[in-house]
């Protein structure tokens, strides 16, 4: 066994050329980094877009020369056109949800950590893994290219509900831009499926000796369940997208019926249902929330435990709540559709299932808090971002109890209350998880450390600005302000909301500036950061037993055997406050069931 392993590892070593090492790499660590850097670039585009439309929302009539230089004909005299406003919110949503928080987060850390933490030489199929990245890359290129087409990018909201998204006559964004959106998303889903299948197979089959499922770090559990969610739900989005493509270009009527455009053009379509699309979309759309959130929760479980120097509290409950959340996420999609005219009885069922999710979520929050209790907390930037995640997970989760309640949803549905809710619970939590992961595993990725003090600056400005942006939005929603409004000046009843909009936009710009600090830190440290030691955070998991320098096959010799779970921090009787998973049990230790 060991001799073949060493042998195969040496074999790989000779073959590497520039192209196989840096571009068409099949090494999971390189692919993880590729996902991360692509995700960061897409994230930058998505965040810049949000700054642009925040300018419009806070100062609706003001002229900003920068808008004209960036948007050209879409912002004559520096004032944004309503069509490009809608396009910006649409592409901002699409990019952040799929390209940053799905591919950038799950793609990066599943790839980097699964083989390293379970003790495998690489993914089950390096080739599929490479394809997964390149499909993602192609999909990103097409999405970015769609920004430059004559009629503008897709603009029907990130959920692209037909008929608006199906009919080029309804808005310019539903022309070529929408076709590219659908093509891009289809490629994205292919990427996601290739990745997810690989993750599942790898976790099930390639665990090292002694790494039973109950000894897996919670990161791996989270990635595992996320991959299952993806495999089961993304294909449904493909079907929704394909039917939409048919309706758009082949004259079918899956989603269209009885339509006359404002121009007087009567469409021949009959018998379709726009609500069908919403069912298909949200059957993915809701699990997608957890595809984004679970990896972030997994990452922070690991980081909070490591930096509290304590075992994660209630390991089994944490695994159980991941499973419960994942299961429930498939039977709650209707809570996005309480006011679509769906049968009210169904609304009642979805209210029930939706609110149940609060139970496993509460368990997770309490377990995090208890993990901090009587710890010896090391405040790395990663740890701070993890604590921030728990905070936003609680805040956003609580408003979910309001929105999941069909009767309460009636009046806040599609208002800024919803925008506030999902940005806090999903956007902020996941992005905090992503940052936490980057700060924590940067030494593993690049062999160097990120600058700690810049990390602190990045964290505090981001954290304060994030609440500054999204907390006041609740009040806008309670004032009845609908989302996706180009401006609220058309309604005098909203005139007194201008002040809040200005505050939000100022926080958004401050928050954006903090991300520039992060970008600088990230790219500067790749070459210039201080060299990392093998196990800088004194962590238990297997990835810290590999050498700092990346090698194909991860371990120079045999893959180590695992003797214990990942969370023996500060175990009484041990000299150090951490005990690596590869440390054999001492005579006096009993194998405990956690």
């Amino acid at each position, binding site marked *: 066994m060991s001799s073949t392993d060493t042998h195969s590892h040496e074999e790989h070593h000779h073959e590497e050329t520039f192209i196989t090492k840096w571009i068409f790499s099949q090494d999971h660590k390189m692919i993880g980094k590729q996902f991360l850097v692509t995700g960061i670039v897409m994230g930058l585009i998505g965040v810049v877009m949000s700054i642009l439309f925040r300018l419009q929302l806070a100062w609706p009539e003001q002229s900003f020369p920068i808008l004209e230089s960036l948007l050209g004909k879409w912002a004559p005299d520096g004032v944004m056109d309503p069509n490009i406003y809608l396009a910006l919110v649409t592409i901002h949503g699409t990019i952040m949800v799929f390209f940053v928080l799905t591919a950038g987060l799950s793609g990066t850390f599943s790839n980097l950590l699964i083989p390293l933490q379970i003790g495998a030489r690489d993914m089950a199929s390096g080739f599929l893994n490479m394809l997964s990245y390149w499909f993602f890359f192609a999909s990103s290129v097409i999405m970015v290219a769609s920004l430059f087409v004559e009629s503008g990018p897709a603009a029907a*909201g990130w959920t692209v509900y037909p008929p*608006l998204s199906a009919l080029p006559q309804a808005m310019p964004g539903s022309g070529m831009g929408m076709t590219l959106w659908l093509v891009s998303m289809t490629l994205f889903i292919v990427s996601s499926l290739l990745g997810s299948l690989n993750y599942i197979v790898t976790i099930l089959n390639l665990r090292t000796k002694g790494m039973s499922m109950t000894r897996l770090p919670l990161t791996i559990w989270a990635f595992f369940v996320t991959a299952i969610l993806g495999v089961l739900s993304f294909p449904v989005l493909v079907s929704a997208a394909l039917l939409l493509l048919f309706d758009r270009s082949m004259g079918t009527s899956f989603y269209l019926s009885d339509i006359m455009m404002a121009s007087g053009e009567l469409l021949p379509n009959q018998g379709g249902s726009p609500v069908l699309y919403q069912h298909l979309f949200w059957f993915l759309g809701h699990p997608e929330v957890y595809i984004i959130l679970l990896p972030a929760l997994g990452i922070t479980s690991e980081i909070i435990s490591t930096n509290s120097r304590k075992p*994660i509290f209630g390991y089994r409950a944490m695994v159980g709540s991941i499973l419960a959340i994942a299961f429930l996420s498939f039977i709650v999609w209707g809570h996005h559709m309480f006011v679509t005219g769906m049968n009210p009885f169904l609304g*009642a069922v979805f209210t029930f299932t939706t*609110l149940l999710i609060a*139970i496993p979520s509460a368990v997770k929050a309490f377990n995090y808090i208890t993990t*901090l209790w009587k710890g010896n907390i*090391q405040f790395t930037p990663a740890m701070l971002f993890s604590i921030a995640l728990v905070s936003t997970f609680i805040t956003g989760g609580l408003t979910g109890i309001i929105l999941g309640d069909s009767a309460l949803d009636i009046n806040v549905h599609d208002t800024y209350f919803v925008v506030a809710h999902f940005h806090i619970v999903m956007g902020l939590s996941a992005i905090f998880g992503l940052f936490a992961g980057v700060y924590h595993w940067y030494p593993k990725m690049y062999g160097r450390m990120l600058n700690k003090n810049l990390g602190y600056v990045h964290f505090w400005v981001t954290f304060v600005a994030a609440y500054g942006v999204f907390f006041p939005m609740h009040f806008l929603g309670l004032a009845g302000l609908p989302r996706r*409004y180009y401006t609220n000046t058309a309604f005098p009843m909203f005139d007194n909301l201008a002040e809040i909009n200005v505050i939000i936009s100022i926080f958004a710009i401050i928050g954006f500036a903090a991300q520039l600090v992060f970008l600088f830190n990230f790219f500067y440290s790749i070459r210039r950061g201080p060299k990392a030691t093998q196990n800088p955070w004194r962590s238990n998991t297997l990835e810290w037993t590999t050498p700092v320098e990346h090698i194909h096959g991860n371990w120079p010799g045999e893959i180590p055997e695992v003797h214990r779970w990942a969370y023996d921090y500060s175990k009484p009787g041990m000299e150090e406050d951490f005990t690596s998973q590869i440390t054999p049990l001492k005579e006096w230790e009993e194998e405990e069931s956690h």
Partner: protein
Amino acid sequence: MTGIITAIVVLLGIIALVQIVRIFEISREVSKTDSNAVSERDNDTQGKLLLAVMIIGIIGFFYSFYAWGGITLPKPASEHGVDIDNLWDITMGVIILVFLITQPILFYFGYKYRGIKGRKATYYEHNNKLELIWTLVPAVVLAGIILYGLSTWVEITFPDTEEDPMVVELYGKQFGWTARYAGEDNQLGYANVRMIEGINVLGIDASDQASVDDIVVTELHLPVGRPVMLKFRAQDVIHSAYLPHFRVQMNCVPGMVTQFQFTPTVTTAEMATDPDVVRNVTEINEIRAAAGEDPYEFEYVLLCNKICGAAHYNMQMKIVVEEEEAYNKWLAEQKTFAESL
């Protein structure tokens, strides 16, 4: 010019960052310590910062309610709206309580257990009793919220059929609303987009007897205290009829008819004298006066709340709730569908 200045500022920013990082690195070399490892001092500073930010955050939380609590929608103007607002208040009370307990604990633990050299954390990996408690307590609280929520939902969506509501259609298209009263027979005539022609903008079937007395208008008047069954249609894309003051919202979907029944309970004139409304209108008018705009008088309004295209933000219709008498007078002035043909 601005471009050049921006480029220079960005460049200077990057140079400044490089210099700051260089200083960190040089100081590390000088003092021979690893400045990137988290020191005891870092733990102390960051722990205290967590506590401070939490306290400021909680103050900010209360202050935001003080500063902005008044801009929220005024009291509900419909029967079921009162139920929704009661449910809202109770649910909100519960989640604010949980928020104010958990967040301070989270940040306080961060502060209290900030790392100290030589101290060992407590090895505490699970406690079934504790975990059972915080599974069961949320479950019980949620059961209450679910039951209360569902009973409200059922009351709203399965209204009393004996009330014999007045039927009114709301019709959305890019980018405006039209309303149609069912007339004396209280039955809307059949309509379909295929029959839209000339002034028949709703595509009403003139051969359907029920359509003769239908009344098509562009301003919605409702008599106070009378149940209304709203029927919704859309001509081109999905719109959403949002009547925030009445706590009513329903999507208008091309190819199907949706509905929502409610009873308005407060006339426009009464609502305009509500203290909350008066305060907000005064505030709004101060802002409008400063900007040189006409003063605003309170009115109920119907908004579009489903993205529908470029002018989505300006798709509105005025709603007037008035006494039965005034309503009847207004309605008598409108032409019926048969008259208008």
